[in-house]
């Protein structure tokens, strides 16, 4: 039986509330987002760049009134920047200030490994927060394999073990979203602990809704032309097919240039907004017969 939970009541509720905040989710996305809240499991979102993976986490934070804690992953990310770090300068000061007094070393030792000297980093911050939190771990595939091991404890038990302090468990489980561009396979261990969602380019109808909602100034007719062109471009076997982010950029460009009709000439002039490889542009010009 469906149980009520603090994030979304039903998949339909998730879809409706996300849509109200400007994120138009399809059925699978809404269902999976609902499940992530209901099962309290992390959600791994994969897909090409610019289809709204990060935006999903932000939208969830917006509609549930939660705060967003973000960990941007990159090569070389380590424990000290993901989990926690001891503020050793402050610790040093503490030791120096206690040197005049006759405080025993063991007391000082206990003193300097307390909360006061702990610098929390995103993962620990998200776990210790008492308010509703959305934890976004962005571009997990950019990190080294060792960092994945670091994530495991956080993802499965929502706890962090600090040798000097003990284990810190989540007061309130955050809604965790991991995003990945699939530049490398994540380990089975991480995947097993997550729900998985693949976001792909939307169908024409949804894309038009998204473009219209993001760029309300765009005329209905131009929006339809734009989406039709984007759909054709995606069929062309390009190095980097245009994503939703690029459609929206294109729509903004057309509004800024006050182009009222997306004809071949207008497409050719503004192609640089959507296609970012020279060979892709050449191919598009050839296939769409832009310069006959």
């Amino acid at each position, binding site marked *: 039986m469906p*149980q009520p939970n603090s994030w979304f009541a039903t998949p339909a509720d998730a879809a409706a509330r996300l849509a109200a905040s400007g994120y138009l989710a399809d059925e699978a996305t809404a269902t*999976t987002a609902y*499940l992530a809240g209901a099962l309290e499991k992390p959600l791994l979102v994969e897909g090409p760049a610019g289809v709204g993976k990060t935006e999903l986490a932000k939208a969830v934070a917006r509609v549930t009134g939660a705060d967003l804690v973000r960990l941007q992953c990159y090569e070389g990310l380590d424990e000290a920047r993901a989990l926690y770090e001891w503020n050793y300068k402050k610790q040093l000061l503490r030791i120096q200030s206690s040197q005049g007094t006759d405080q025993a070393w063991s007391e000082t030792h206990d003193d300097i490994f307390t909360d006061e000297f702990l610098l929390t980093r995103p993962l620990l911050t998200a776990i210790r927060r008492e308010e509703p939190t959305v934890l976004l771990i962005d571009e997990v595939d950019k990190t080294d394999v060792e960092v994945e091991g670091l994530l495991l404890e956080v993802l499965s038990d929502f706890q962090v073990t600090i040798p000097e302090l003990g284990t810190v468990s989540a007061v309130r489980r955050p809604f965790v979203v991991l995003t990945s561009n699939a530049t490398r*396979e994540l380990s089975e261990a991480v*995947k097993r602990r997550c729900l998985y969602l693949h976001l792909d380019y939307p169908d024409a109808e949804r894309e038009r809704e998204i473009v219209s909602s993001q760029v309300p100034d765009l005329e209905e007719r131009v929006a339809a032309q734009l989406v039709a062109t984007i759909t*054709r471009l995606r069929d062309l*076997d390009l190095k980097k097919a245009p994503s939703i982010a690029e459609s929206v950029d294109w729509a903004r460009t057309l509004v800024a240039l006050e182009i009222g009709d997306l004809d071949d000439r207008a497409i050719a002039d503004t192609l640089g907004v959507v296609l970012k490889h020279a060979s892709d542009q050449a191919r598009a010009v050839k296939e769409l017969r832009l310069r006959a």
Partner: protein
Amino acid sequence: MSLVDRHIQFLEALRGAGLSVSLAEDLDAIRALRALEWDDRATVRAGYAATLVKKQSQRPTFDALFDLYFPRMVGDGAAAATREQDPEGGVRDNAEALSGFRDQVVDALAEGDRQAMVELAADMVARFGAMPGRGPGLSSWSAYTALQRVAPAELTDRIVAALLAAGRPEDDGRREAARRIGSFTTLVEADARRRIAEEKGPDHVAGVAVRPTIDRLDFTAARKADLEEMRREIYPLARRLATRLTQEHHARRRGPLDFRRTVRASMSTGGVPMITHHKPKRPHRTELVVLCDVSGSVANFAQFTLLLVYALRDQFEKVRAFTFIDHVHEVTPYFTPGADPADVMADLAASTAHAALWGRTNYGRALAKFEVNHADALGPKSSLLILGDARSNYSDLNLDVLKRLAGSARHAWWLNPEHRRHWDTGDSAATRYGDIVPMVECRNLTQLGELVHDIL
């Protein structure tokens, strides 16, 4: 059969098809289903997909199996009941019914109405794909028969005409029509599977009807649509490989200890070498010479390997590529930086003629020609990569030439797209060549990716 049994069977089928579904994920799926409403099939599918499928390349397999174990409808579904009352539905299969049905197909495909296509596919298998058996339980359904009779491919021109009338440009309409016919064909095949599964049990179908995922599909078994899909996979595969290589390279970046710098740095800590300094490691880059058989049987494999090698061009010092059938032709110039893979493929296909004099594969002659014309390509820094099935039409193998070529290169590999059990059958000289140059089996994109990674 209870719901749990069906769930377990579904999981077993997924595991059988190569998805690694763990017990933990099994339990997650159950928890997900408890949290969801059961009245919508799409929701159940999304719930299963979120908990069980962790790789997008496995999604088609999952969808096919889900359709088998949780079918859209039973038999002809609710539509059958209404059709019984329809007086014109009396004769369901004759010439007139067939042409009427084809008109319906054209309309639905021209509209692009997904729901109508699904219903028509079910109707089509029911009417034209039935194979009556001699007794109960022996009847079956054939997507092949249905497709042969209705022949949607022959309707292309009518669909294109309808699309053009709707204001689409010519080539776009043609592509769109081909795609819709392709998806309609897939729907018909899926519906036939559904009906067979209903009569004989899903386990019976699951083993045979589900194709391997695209990265595990044999090059030699690929259909035209699969080849398209594979070509789209090449670029992402190259990107993944490049990322992996860079990371591995960074992990080994620290070279031997730089003694002078370490001592100099130790001055600031009173002579205690607190921080060691290392010499940077010089990246080693290979010069690669690719020699590939482009005769009909292995042409696809050669093209994919060439594309992958060229997508990874930055990782090599230099790449030279040669194709052969019974003559050698250099194809390096076709791979210009940033070139469009589709154009490159077309150019390669067109240049095949240069690689043949008589058109019968002759490894011995090709190797000899290579030694005469292009021996300068191989040097102590270069690696030789030979692609082919080693089937030389019983001609002279020129083993000593290959021995000399392999000897002049730093490394040599032979990738064979055939399954190991087919080696040495017929005119295959796999072992005899394999004794000189280490030969490895390379049948699908996964294996190809691993091999290219090892070569680097």
